[in-house]
């Protein structure tokens, strides 16, 4: 496991209207469980999922839920939320057509706030959630959905159910596949010498802390 050659860390956003099941999808995917009553976690701004993509590759996904209490609730996202995300899921609820109508709004909003370092839009997968709760007219025609995705720049779409654990792994694999494909292109544009100050074990600081005292 540790001997994997390549490790990738990707930030993914999970976006969509209220109550479409964003948090449920993350919980199902990351924590392997589903509960219609779940507790809000405080102090955590993303969930981490580790995928053993192939024998040589480990992919770590940071799933950033837009529903961290407080900022998102009144539509006041900080740039910190969007910045450097590599992909996104936009979720709607098949039982509520209004949430599908909001999908294009979310997509446009995302594209206006986020792009890859090369200026292209990030990969986005559309999730038609709660597919266990009866088929919606919108989805009866798969061709129409394919057409919709093509027109609006989604890399794919899936009917999902967080409750029944349908298609969530598949949707994630689709998104990661597109991100990996994009990354080869991006490698050139990645900026070197970025400083990321972190909590460092005290021993590593010995020299500068001597000078400091």
């Amino acid at each position, binding site marked *: 496991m540790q001997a994997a050659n390549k490790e990738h860390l990707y930030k993914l956003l999970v976006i969509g209207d209220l109550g479409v099941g964003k948090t449920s999808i993350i919980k199902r995917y990351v924590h392997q469980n589903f509960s219609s009553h779940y507790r*809000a976690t405080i102090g955590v701004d993303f969930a981490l999922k580790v995928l053993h993509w192939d024998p040589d590759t480990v992919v770590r996904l940071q799933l950033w839920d837009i529903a961290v209490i407080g900022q998102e609730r009144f*539509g*006041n996202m900080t740039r910190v939320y969007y910045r450097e995300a590599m992909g996104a899921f936009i979720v709607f609820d098949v039982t509520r057509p209004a949430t599908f109508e909001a999908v294009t709004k979310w997509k446009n909003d995302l594209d206006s706030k986020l792009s890859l370092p090369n200026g292209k839009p990030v990969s986005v997968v559309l999730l038609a959630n709660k597919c266990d709760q009866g088929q919606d007219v919108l989805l009866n025609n798969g061709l129409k959905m394919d057409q919709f995705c093509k027109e609006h720049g989604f890399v794919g779409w899936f009917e999902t159910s967080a409750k029944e654990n349908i298609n969530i792994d598949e949707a994630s694999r689709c998104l990661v596949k597109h991100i990996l494909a994009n990354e080869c292109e991006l490698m050139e544009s990645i900026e070197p*010498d970025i400083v990321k100050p972190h909590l460092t074990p005290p021993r590593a600081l010995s020299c500068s802390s001597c000078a400091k005292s």
Partner: protein
Amino acid sequence: MADSLPTEFDVIIIGTGLPESILAAACSRSGQRVLHVDSRSYYGGNWASFTFSGLLSWLKECEQDSEAGDKSTVAWQNLIQDTEEAIALRRKDDSIQHVEVFCYASKDTGDSAEEIDVLQKNPSLVASSTLTKPLDSACLSEETHSDSTSPEMPAKDTPQHDGEILPEVTDREETQVKETDCGEKTCIHTVSDGAKDENKPVVEDNSGQPKRNRITYSQIVKEGRRFNIDLVSKLLYSQGSLIDLLIKSNVSRYAEFKNVTRILAFREGKVEQVPCSRADVFNSKELTMVEKRMLMKFLTFCLDYEQHPGEYQDFTQRPFSEYLKTQKLTPNLQHFILHSIAMTEPSCLTVDGLKATKHFLQCLGRYGNTPFLFPLYGQGEIPQCFCRMCAVFGGIYCLRHRVQCLVVDKESGRCEAVIDHFGQRISAKFFIVEDSYLSEDTCAGVQYGQISRAVLITDQSVLKADSDQQISMLTVPPAEPGARAVRVAELCSSTMTCMKDTYLVHLTCSSASTAREDLEPVVQKLFTPYAETEIDEGDPPKPRLLWALYFNMRDSSGVSRSSYHGLPSNVYVCSGPDCGLGNEHAVKLAETLFQQIFPGEDFCPPPPNPEDIIFDGDDKQPEAPGTNTLIVAKLEASEGSQNLDSPGQHLQ
């Protein structure tokens, strides 16, 4: 939206500048219920950074009449009970003054299709349209003003602002010149002539390097999202209190930095690189061998100057500059140390100069070759990082949310609640208010300082180097005794604050006059206006100015709490940005206020790291190292179980 906002909190914080945002994170982190509001539509207040179009909108906002947009607010006077009194807050921030904008870049109409697209998104960008009246630099102040309601305007949704922000006109024949004096108000001046520029050959460097890039105004507008233009220009000392706080609180997980790559000096009309590390000193081509030894000896002494008081005791009450003259240092080296390393004013005392030099040297090498870091995407990211931390710990955020007044209980003399623009009363135990929200009455006895700022977009660095991706810090000493030194930060596109092939240059000094009067002489020394390039045959050619903005920002950092009139003891005041290079003032202020409000509480301790909470794909057990430190609130307030708002509100 308003009715779903809880009406009871522990702490209400008004303003999202750096000190307020640090306090919000600290309060939320220690378990307080925090409401953090700002009347503006963006985070950061005077600490904000903007895209190019965002900056133009901000300029427009600065201009707007204080009574404008007030119609929707609910009167609060009836909501105050007999046992209470109200302290009204200010309706309009007036901390920004003397705004002046100059556009030098060519306004060619080559790709009008794209411009139209931009114009539709940003109605304030009328200025991007076409060629304008040619003016030479000698008559910069002679602006062309047009009636903003005139039918000749190039865009239909011309902003309404009393004609003070000047939308450029399509054809000067049609211009109605309304006024020629803009006084202290915002003006947009245009000094380039697009048509003439079309015929000019592209200038080549003397060094035979690639052609100088021609950047037009429409390109700046088109690439406007690449810009993150800070209202305050600051850097982080790599051993400073802000970087320490970011690391300690792990708010650093939200931020990334670049090293400032060069320290520059301006001496005898030329920009030179200051060698500051040991390697720099030895590699320097400017210094002689003797100078290298002198400098190393002196810097080594500064690192532990306290151990050798005999070396400087005769100078403790005399200026650092005099002390330097007695050391074995050439004038060249004295200049470097005084202006670029210690970065002190000429009157600075010897001990303070030695202390500043030591601090500079200590900060070297922690992350890079200079003592400074610059946040990617601009300084304006930093308050937002603290806000994110606050929100992650349950803090509630409302932008565009104006607080009309503080409600004070007459008997206890304590502030109990605020009333917002919906007329809603929100109560709390403690109130933190940024200075610019306080009314004229409250601030009647307050003496403010002023900061002079300039923001320039240029086409080349002030000092060419092998790499065009340099981040430089330059101090321009005062031209005459008694004047102020001007701090210049030049940012390249890899800082994510400007478009490719441009530089974003920030100038800062404490004000003696208006920003333009204080800073234009330095701008003229370092840069040449775009249109004048053919005349300027200097060697090497100066970088060209594409666009310039001047403004004064009020400096409330020196105001003591006691000079505010009539504020209850549980109302705490945060100042706006100070003039200093680092963020030490803001961090100290936030920590001091936090200790006053919650004595003995830990200030911004590290949160559990989400990286420790790993749910491995192959592991069925959702427990992982570090999970025991995770705080799980026993709430059901997440988005799936409550109907909090309507879809549109996520979209701005």
